């Protein structure tokens, strides 16, 4: 092992990587927000007493949970535009793929959280004369939120990692920028080790923040 590590060509191109990191965060934040909205709708449909609402949402969730994300990326970027006769920007295709996919997972997080609240809480609220909407807002969701927190964070971490797939659509996030740096420097070991560490730093610091937030959220216990 006589390989001479040399990070200087990569350091010289750090603005490129920084721009990639920014795009990674951007796409992740957009997809989390949209994914939460998709997930809420799917969860409400799945909890509905009406079968014709439950069934489509179950099919959607199961389909997304049981197919690889890269298929979704390619499907949104190449297949959907052909059918609709439009063209999609890589960013939009990636956001669509990420938010629908994570929406399916978020839906399960939300549903699990709501269903984990004991029957007594629903009854206690009903016995006071609360309507379904009132008891959801005041009693069930505040408690479910604390229980959903950990799985929600876990899912969001998966989403952040999945954003790397946007590189396959040539969207300029961190991995794609790394590939560009690599093609200019021919230093794959340094480049890919650096981006791996950048992801590590990003996710470890996010998980630190998540732990702080969780401690505040569950203060009443």
């Amino acid at each position, binding site marked *: 092992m006589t390989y001479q590590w040399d990070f200087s060509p990569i350091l010289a191109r750090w603005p490129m990587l920084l721009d990639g990191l920014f795009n990674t965060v951007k796409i992740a934040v957009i997809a989390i927000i949209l994914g939460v909205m998709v997930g809420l709708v799917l969860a409400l449909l799945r909890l509905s007493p009406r079968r014709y609402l439950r069934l489509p949402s179950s099919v959607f969730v199961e389909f997304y949970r049981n197919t690889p994300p890269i298929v979704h990326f390619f499907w949104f970027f190449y297949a959907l535009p052909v059918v609709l006769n439009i063209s999609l920007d890589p960013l939009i295709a990636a956001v669509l793929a990420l938010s629908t996919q994570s929406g399916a997972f978020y839906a399960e997080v939300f549903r699990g959280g709501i269903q984990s609240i004991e029957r007594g809480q629903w009854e206690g609220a009903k*016995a006071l*004369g609360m309507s379904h909407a009132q008891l959801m807002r*005041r009693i069930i969701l505040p408690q479910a939120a604390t229980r959903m927190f950990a799985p929600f964070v876990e899912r969001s971490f998966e989403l952040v990692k999945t954003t790397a797939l946007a590189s396959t659509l040539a969207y300029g996030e961190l991995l794609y920028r790394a590939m560009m740096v690599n093609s200019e420097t021919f230093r794959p070991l340094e480049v890919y080790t650096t981006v791996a560490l950048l992801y590590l730093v990003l996710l470890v610091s996010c998980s630190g923040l998540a732990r702080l937030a969780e401690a505040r959220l569950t203060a009443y216990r």
Partner: protein
Amino acid sequence: MQAETLSMPEPTRPAPILQVSGLHKWFGALHVLRGIDFSVEAGERIAIIGGSGSGKSTFLRCLNFMETPSSGRIALDGTPLGRTTAGKPDEVRYPESELCRVRERVGMVFQQFNLFPHMTVLENAMEGLVTVKRMKKGQARERALRELHKVGLGEKTDVYPGRLSGGQQQRVAIARALAMEPEILLFDEPTSSLDPELVGEVLRVIRQLAEEGRTMLLVTHELGFAYHFATKVIFLADGVFHEVGTPDEVLKHPGQERTRAFLDRFTEFSF
């Protein structure tokens, strides 16, 4: 403790608040309530006793629609609840808004307390007033404090329920129900999940409410308490009222063999 005589007011001006007719409840293939006719008059205190699985809790829970009756009607102040479609008198639909109004007037205290763990004691007692009755915060707070003082928890208003003993939690639950100023209070085995040494503090609060002349229904295993508390005792078995009468009639001189057998099991080990 139950030996002392209580001076409880006799029910005045008997007028049925709540009327039940032909009540049946099925859980799948299980026929839990098998045709119950019944009415509650203002000021009555009714103790419902019976073995486990006799349907006594289900019966109580039908009265505020925690369980939806399978058939039969319930009327509040003479007005039947729920709506029927023409031609199908057995199919009663209960719109949510109507159930909410009923539950505002018929309070319930549960075996498992069902306090809201993410709210303080005071917030628990204020919740119904603020969310359901749309009362102003200050006013709700005042009333909630009054009820918490009444159950002896005026000092614990800012703690979360998780920090309280079972007996204290149940007293908060009673205060929460009282704050709504219900016309009828339902108690579903309020002391069954308490450690024996905590039962007394809850029963004392219930007795105090009896002295105020409130209309109450109590499902209980505490037969001694039922004897001193109730104006009427109902023995429920196999989903029907097996015996109904004054505490003396049902608990001291039961007319039915089944009632006697039930009471014997309870008094087997008493001195």
